[in-house]
């Protein structure tokens, strides 16, 4: 039996990314939300684990009231209960204070866990930091980018894919894993599950004050990270016309672009030429 927590986040749909041109931030109020894809894979991994070993799955999210939708979806997919952390004081939290708040909520409301699963990253901010930071906050082992996992008594053996390497690691429970999107393709949501998800469900909503934390230490006030600006990168192209005899032009190309060509063919052409 494995007692699991899955942290899920509501992110804007990839097709809808309305930016506020003045503040350089995402207008979350305008975007249709969805469960972050990697979080959905983590939830699927947890449901599969429960199917194999028994136990229960608690879905946890932090976000504005509308984020409750992803918890209802998690219940529709099969999660047993949900914890919602929602408070205007938490708005604008960076990854550090998000992990801090999630850790306190888990310690208070679901301390008895074996395994925490999170997505390996989110599609909105792509930091991939909350999972590892949460492991630090809870002082448990954390392994990122996991695609396969196998519980063996009180330990877990996982395979992770990172930097083009596959690694097999083993650690004791409790621990935290961030799950990538290579395996554990999420199941479709059954319609009966959706009907149930809006009936009597075990969904607890808590505020910052329920966590016994200073409101000044969380949210945008408590966040050490300040986003100064968000912008789309500009790619600039320059057209250069070389004139003259072909031999001369080729020499000039190599002269002007030796570093770039070396990079592309992965050989230092100057050294090769000298050699």
């Amino acid at each position: 039996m494995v007692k699991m927590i899955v942290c899920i986040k509501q992110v804007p749909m990839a097709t809808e990314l309305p930016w506020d041109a003045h503040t350089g931030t995402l207008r979350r109020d305008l975007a249709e939300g969805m469960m972050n894809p990697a979080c959905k894979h983590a939830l699927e991994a947890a449901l599969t684990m429960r199917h194999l070993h028994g136990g229960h799955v608690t879905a946890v999210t932090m976000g504005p009231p509308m984020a409750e939708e992803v918890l209802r979806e998690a219940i529709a997919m099969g999660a047993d209960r949900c914890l919602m952390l929602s408070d205007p004081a938490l708005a604008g939290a960076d990854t550090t204070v998000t992990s801090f708040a999630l850790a306190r909520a888990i310690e208070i409301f679901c301390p008895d866990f074996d395994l925490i699963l999170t997505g390996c990253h989110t599609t909105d901010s792509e930091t991939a930091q909350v999972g590892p930071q949460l492991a630090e906050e809870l002082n448990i082992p954390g392994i990122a980018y996991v695609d396969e996992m196998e519980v063996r008594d009180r330990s877990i053996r996982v395979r992770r894919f990172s930097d083009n390497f596959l690694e097999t690691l083993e650690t004791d429970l409790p621990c935290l894993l961030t799950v990538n999107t290579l395996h554990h393709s999420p199941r479709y949501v059954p319609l009966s599950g959706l009907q149930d998800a809006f009936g009597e469900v075990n969904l607890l909503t808590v505020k910052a004050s329920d966590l016994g934390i200073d409101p000044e230490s969380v949210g945008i006030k408590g966040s050490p990270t300040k986003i100064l600006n968000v912008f789309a990168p500009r790619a600039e192209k320059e057209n250069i016309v070389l004139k003259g005899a072909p031999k001369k032009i080729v020499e000039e190309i190599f002269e002007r672009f030796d570093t770039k060509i070396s990079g592309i063919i992965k050989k230092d052409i100057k050294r090769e030429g000298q050699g």
Partner: protein
Amino acid sequence: MKHKLVRKAVREFSEAELGPIAHDLDRDARFPWEVVEKMRPLNFFGLQVPRKYGGADLDSISYAITIEEISRVSGAMGLCVTVHNSVGVYPILKFGTEDQRDRFVPRLASGEIIGAFCLTEANAGSDAAGVETHAVQTRDGYVINGTKIFVTNGGVCSLPLIFAVTDTAEPTRSACVFIVESGTPGYSVGEIEDLCGMRANPVSSLFFEDCRVPGENLLGKTGDGIKIALATLDTGRIGIAAQAVGIAQAAFEASVKYSKERQQFRKPISSFQSIQNMLADMAVEVDAARLLVYRVCALKDAGKPFGKEAAMAKLYASTVSTSVTGRAVQVHGGYGYSKEYDVERYFRDAKVTEIYEGTSEIQRLVISRSVLSELM
């Protein structure tokens, strides 16, 4: 929030499972059993069936959204699901005995068997009393003779509901609905019709030749046929209206996308007012049709009469579907007339929404009767 999630869930499924094959299903007139297999555990075949029979027990707006979203990707599969749920399952739930519900509904709700409702004949359709399929009562049941045509799901259903009369001289008073199980001697399926649209749905004739049906398969009582048919069609119209909205929505979205991509006179055609006007009208009409559908759903769930509102939703949504898909072809120009683009399929699929489950003319009849009796 629930309705948004239902939309997302059905859209995700439909786009992933039907999206890549919808064009080919239409071209090949193939019914996708492999998709049906995946739909079964997700409760697509028991949308409003109570839990004790294995259904999802959804409210009517969720039902309409489900049909809308399937039809947005594949009108033909939207048709299969709505016909199964509304006119295949609903009459047994509403008018069936406990024994009939226990025997048939769980198998229908799980999608193990697919349902259909057969009213139309060569000389009967809008005029239900013109039905010639005849049932003769025997000691232990009925013997049915007749031919039903244009049966949606005809080629794949295993439990058609048959509208027949026991006395052709008194069709209205003797009308009955029978539950016929596949494999019953004398029941056979005709060739699949070669239709303009909805080609992935195997619409066919069904033949009944001395087909013996046990007495316990009579739905309701002798003479209940018209009542059952009218109630069934009221419900069925909600599904067809939702289907029409889904097809129109797909055509509208395709038009917006294409108008931004297609360049003429060195500008996207969406920058021209003539195209903008078309898109604006399409947006308004699709939304208005959708709201009419949701209103009738809300009335139905509140237990209020909804026959007139179902007819209004069906009439308007089907008219909008035909007209929006027509304009979608126009926005696409020559490409819209090519089978390479999906709007050509939407255009063909939309037309029949003005015909089945009561033609637009019959909807106007239902609506006018109602308004004439309501208002002094």
